[in-house]
């Protein structure tokens, strides 16, 4: 048996090993290409990234983007989960919303950007609306399937034991649906994260997506790469947080591959 600490250490080691190789290849490629305005050396990008950090530009952009993401994401959860649970519980509710959801869903949030450019213009509202749209469908669909997948024997047992409808909903059905809802939460987070970057790139006056686009307009590849590094770090932190939350809320599902 290998200890958990040992596994963590070896994962960390393989990660470092690969990243070291990538940096070496990158460094060699930039030296061979000798066009720093296209592919700057890693150390120059690192210096630019450090400067973004010390001047507070990164924290400002992350704060703006994070706020948008969090607000819209929570709104999508607040509307999507109840709607999905309703659709899972009642065939009536499911029938009423089914076609509407299936008709709109194939259109990605990103495709709505030009519409919102006409309606809102370049604004804070645009990325927030796009993020909401990108996040709400995974919440609805996974909550509905989560409720449908609850073992009917459990609800029958609770009924036989005299539990009221509300109590069954709160203590049997909702906890039983949590694994699927968490899968939806992760898909929603990844969708809304991508939507955020594009929406800000095209239609927002600030934030991470705007910053990387602005660096391109300056023609500064070093700055573009530095921002990409930060976008990668944020995306990683986001996914790791939700993965951790998934493990905390549904510890019995750990080890199962969900939603990948």
């Amino acid at each position, binding site marked *: 048996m290998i200890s958990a600490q040992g596994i963590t250490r070896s994962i960390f080691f*393989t*990660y470092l*090993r*690969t*990243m070291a*190789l*990538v940096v070496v290849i990158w460094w060699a490629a930039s030296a061979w290409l000798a066009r720093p305005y*296209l592919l700057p050396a890693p150390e120059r990008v690192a210096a630019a990234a450090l400067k973004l950090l010390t001047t507070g530009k990164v924290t400002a952009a992350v704060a703006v983007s994070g706020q948008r993401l969090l607000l819209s994401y929570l709104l999508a959860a607040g509307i999507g989960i109840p709607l999905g649970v309703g659709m899972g519980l009642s*065939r*009536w509710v499911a*029938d*009423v*919303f*089914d*076609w*509407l959801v299936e*008709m709109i869903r*194939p*259109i*990605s949030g*990103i*495709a*709505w*950007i*030009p*519409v919102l*450019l*006409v*309606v809102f213009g370049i604004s804070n509202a645009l990325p927030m609306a796009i993020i909401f749209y990108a996040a709400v469908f995974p919440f609805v669909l996974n909550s509905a399937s989560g409720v449908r997948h609850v073992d009917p024997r459990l609800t029958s047992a609770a*009924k036989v034991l005299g539990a009221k409808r509300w109590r069954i909903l709160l203590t049997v059905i909702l906890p039983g649906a949590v694994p699927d809802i968490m899968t939806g939460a992760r898909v929603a987070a990844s969708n809304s*994260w*991508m939507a*955020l*970057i*594009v929406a800000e*790139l*095209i239609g927002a006056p600030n934030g*991470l*997506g705007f910053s*990387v*686009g602005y*660096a*391109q*307009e300056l*023609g500064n*590849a070093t700055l*573009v*790469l530095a*921002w*990409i590094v930060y*976008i*990668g770090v944020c*995306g*990683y932190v*986001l*996914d790791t947080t939700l993965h951790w939350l998934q493990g905390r809320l549904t510890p019995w599902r750990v080890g199962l*591959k969900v939603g*990948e």
Partner: protein
Amino acid sequence: MEPGTAVRRTIAIKPLDLAGARVVVRAALPLFLLVLWYVLSLGWPRSPRFATPVGVLQAFIELWAKGSLQTGALVSIERILTAFVLATVLGGSVGLLMGYWSALDGWLGPLVHTLRSIAPYAWIPLVILWLGIGDAAVISIVAYAAFFPMTVNAITGARNIDRNLIDVARVLGASRLTLFGRVFFPAALPSLLVGARLAMGSAWIAVVAAELASGSRATQSASGGLGQMMYIFYAYSINLNYIVACIITVGVLALLSDRLLGALYRRLTPWARGT
């Protein structure tokens, strides 16, 4: 629950079991919203900044008659197909190798997972600096976005193969080529096809994103595609009816390609139902 309520519910629900009644219930909300949109639009000023159901229909007919909708769709579809082939062939083979050969997984795994957490669209600015705003730029963004779902599913597919199958084939004297073609590949095929379907979904989202973004950064020359058409309708003619007509086209094409791959999945792997 009291017996009375149960009886009442059966009576209330029974007529709805008729297929026709269910269709009515399902169609009610979309139809209601469409009618609501139409009624509201009667009071709106006659301006291209307001989309109306009639206006969208007219826009669709107009764009179709001019042929620009077909041209735009064709440009986007060509880019998607090129990127899709690149992503599935590359992602599929890299993924299968990573799933089969754990040493390679050790080296490439961290890279795949790091790149996966960078939103594909964050690369758009860099790709524009490198390749401009034409076909090459859009295709590389779409291929990047489609690569990861394909790779991840190929890894899972190769990892979940029953090792007994491979051992049995080996014992029975199968050559490496037979082993791959007759055992390994068919066993991984369901996962590969799931990955391809997800990749196609990502590709449709990515093509719009890349064309929109490159459109918003184009100084004069247009590189085409439905995404860029939408951007031009925003930036130059500010016509919401045209934009909505394009969006519906993208949605329908995305849905069709998804159904096509779904049918392919059921056709090629009839044994892997229910995933």
